[in-house]
């Protein structure tokens, strides 16, 4: 019984690892329109509004220094590197608060 359980756990971990490897990396550049503890909404330069998940692992930088997640506020221009199966279902790995780019 324990052996079966161990095999199931190993297979599950392998599948999870394979699934993790299948994620794509996305870069979203735009202005935060709403910020919550678990997600931020960003209006991209192309005019599309995207919800991106954030968590305690999400790194936030401003002027190349690490800052608190609370710095993610509406109106701030950000560069988000996120990972996910799709851009609409992605988790932010890193968010840089930067001066807005000229259009």
């Amino acid at each position: 019984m324990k052996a079966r359980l161990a095999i199931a756990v190993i297979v599950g971990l392998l599948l999870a690892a394979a699934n993790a490897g299948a994620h794509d990396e996305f870069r979203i550049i735009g202005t935060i329109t709403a910020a919550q503890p678990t997600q931020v909404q960003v209006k991209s330069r192309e005019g599309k509004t995207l919800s991106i998940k954030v968590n305690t692992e999400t790194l936030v930088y401003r002027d190349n220094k690490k800052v608190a997640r609370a710095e993610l506020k509406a109106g701030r221009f950000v560069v988000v590197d996120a990972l996910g199966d799709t851009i609409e279902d992605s988790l932010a790995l890193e968010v840089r608060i930067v001066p807005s780019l000229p259009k």
Partner: protein
Amino acid sequence: MTTQVAQAAPSRRALVTAMTFAVVAAAVVLVVAVLPAEYGVDVTGAGRAFGLLDLYAARGAVTETLTPAPDGPVFSRNDGYRTDARTLTLSGYGTLEFKYALDEGAAMIYDWTASDIVGFDFHTEPASNPDASESFDKGEAAARRGAYVAPYAGIHGWYWKNNTDHDVTITLTSAGFYSSGKLFLDGGPGEDVVLAGTR
């Protein structure tokens, strides 16, 4: 007092006999020695017995062939070799990917330099399962060069990201056994890139 000895000229028959022996002897020397030593032709086997074939081999006319072993240090392939050189521009905070189509076991060498430090990720998109991407070299740098042997068929190359607000130029050169290229700009759909002809 002098003695004169009269010498009779050889008869016609003796001359013919002598010439015949000379021709036969020359033919024997030609077949037994000259042909094996000079041309590697050993009709009688005497050339091998006397080591005359070694003389011929030593001239380089007989070459030993050696085929590269599978998984050995030498990669040998007659078709599909190409070289490629291109300049790519990353806009401020922009991203792009450039990948080459390589078969399993196909090799390439590469060299890229950037006008500023960029984030990079050398990764794959297997032909059998494009979602099962693998990364092999990832980090931040302004230059990278190396060699790569594709572990499976698919497209293989770099994702670059610009972490500055200004344009960054990437100069990529490579040589290898790839068939085509694919360019993805700012996360958009990829576009096929035709590469220069095969050499």
